[in-house]
């Protein structure tokens, strides 16, 4: 019998919600487990990194990596799995674009450490101890991974063959991706294994959209009693649907929550946030500049909204304070 293809599933800077999504394949996972040989999956099974290191180059058919890269351990594992794998799938919003944890790129490593190890009201740290990559204790050397200056999407660290976005990716797309690998029916390298059209195209509320929409006062979802059958933008609630890829199954929309953008930009667009700004601008209804400025000033955390899942892959990088 021919050897089964080897598959590794690994978490980088991840909440493990992506692992949960794989488990959510339910009975399909039995078919997958029969068809492949899982060689690494820290959240579910006990394997040793050493056995991966001993493998030949390209011995693993597919590595499914989720989470962004924030420290040197994640970088090392991403590079190791890249070396041993024929295909690498960036799985979930964090691996694809940096994810929500990537919002940390709005502040520096120093600011994060100051808050976490000193300034937060619940912290007592009289000696101002900070994590060190190397510490000597009783003559023994203890080490910790290095915390990087910023969060990186996976493709900034290693070459990525395919992308499957989402927070987390929906089971249907996961199953499609896995079977596409097993049946050798993959699209060209570099493709995103999801539909190419924007979310509005698939949105069940699309038909409720009025001919002309204007937002004169932006409201957050908890501030109004949102109608569950009307376009969010028509209700003055920001929804990233016009700039975000479809394929998520519209789970947020169906539970009366506007799109936050976990599926990232559509094909041909690198920066979904910038694209959303262009669309949003034309929706701002205002007589004159002063009124437009007032409406725009009323939008809470605009940059955070535009880049909620994709700040690390935004075209603009935060200007560092040191410079």
């Amino acid at each position, binding site marked *: 019998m021919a050897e089964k293809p080897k598959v590794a599933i690994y978490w980088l800077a991840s909440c493990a919600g992506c692992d949960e999504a794989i488990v959510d394949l339910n009975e399909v996972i039995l078919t997958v487990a029969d068809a492949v040989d899982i060689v690494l999956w820290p959240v579910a099974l006990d394997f040793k990194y050493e056995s991966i290191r001993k493998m030949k180059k390209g011995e693993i058919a597919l590595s499914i990596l989720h989470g962004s890269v924030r420290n040197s351990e994640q970088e090392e594992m991403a590079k190791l799995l890249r070396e041993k794998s024929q295909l690498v799938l960036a799985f979930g919003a964090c691996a694809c674009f940096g994810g929500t944890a990537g919002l940390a790129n709005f502040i520096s490593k120093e600011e994060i450490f100051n808050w976490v190890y000193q300034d937060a009201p619940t912290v007592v740290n009289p000696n101002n101890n900070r994590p060190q990559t190397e510490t000597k204790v009783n003559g023994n050397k203890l080490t910790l991974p290095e915390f990087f200056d910023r969060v990186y999407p996976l493709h900034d660290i290693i070459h990525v063959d395919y992308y499957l976005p989402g927070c987390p990716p929906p089971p249907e797309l996961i199953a499609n991706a896995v079977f596409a690998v097993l049946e050798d029916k993959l699209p060209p390298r570099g493709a995103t294994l999801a539909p190419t059209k924007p979310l509005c195209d698939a949105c069940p509320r699309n038909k409720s959209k009025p001919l002309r929409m204007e937002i004169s006062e932006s409201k957050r979802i908890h501030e109004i009693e949102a109608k569950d059958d009307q376009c969010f933008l028509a209700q003055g609630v920001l929804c990233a649907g016009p700039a975000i890829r479809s394929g998520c199954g519209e789970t947020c929309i169906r539970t009366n929550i506007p799109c936050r953008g976990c599926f990232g930009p559509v094909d041909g667009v690198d920066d979904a946030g910038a694209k959303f700004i262009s669309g949003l601008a034309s929706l701002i209804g205002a007589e004159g500049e002063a009124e437009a400025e007032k409406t725009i000033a009323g939008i809470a955390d605009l940059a*955070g909204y535009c880049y909620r899942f994709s700040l690390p892959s935004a075209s*603009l990088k935060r200007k560092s304070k040191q*410079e």
Partner: protein
Amino acid sequence: MKEFTPKLVCFSCKFGWGYLNGNGYAKKLKNLIPVACSGKVDATHIIDAFKEGADGVLILGCPDKECHFQTGNYQARKRVLLLRKILREFGIEPGRLKIALSLDPEGTRIPAFIEEMKKEIKSLGPLSVAV
């Protein structure tokens, strides 16, 4: 140290600011991009300009309520207002992005507009975005 010369990208509406074919401005001025309408300038174009090393971006559109395509200049202005808010959150001075709505069918005032903005950018210094 070498003196800092700001790099400025200027998008100019062909209707309000001249087709620029006869007077050769488009060739003389570096990084001048004549467009069909200021409303054609997408937020991604502006952000790409910054990403590619521009220290400032200037958009020249038609006067208020005089857009050939009805509201292109108005859309561009709202886009600029939104983007300036975004720039601020990225730690970038909002003054690096400007829009001027006026009429100059020959485009003769374009060099002066560019020089004036370059002066302002010069006082802000180069835009070195951390990568």
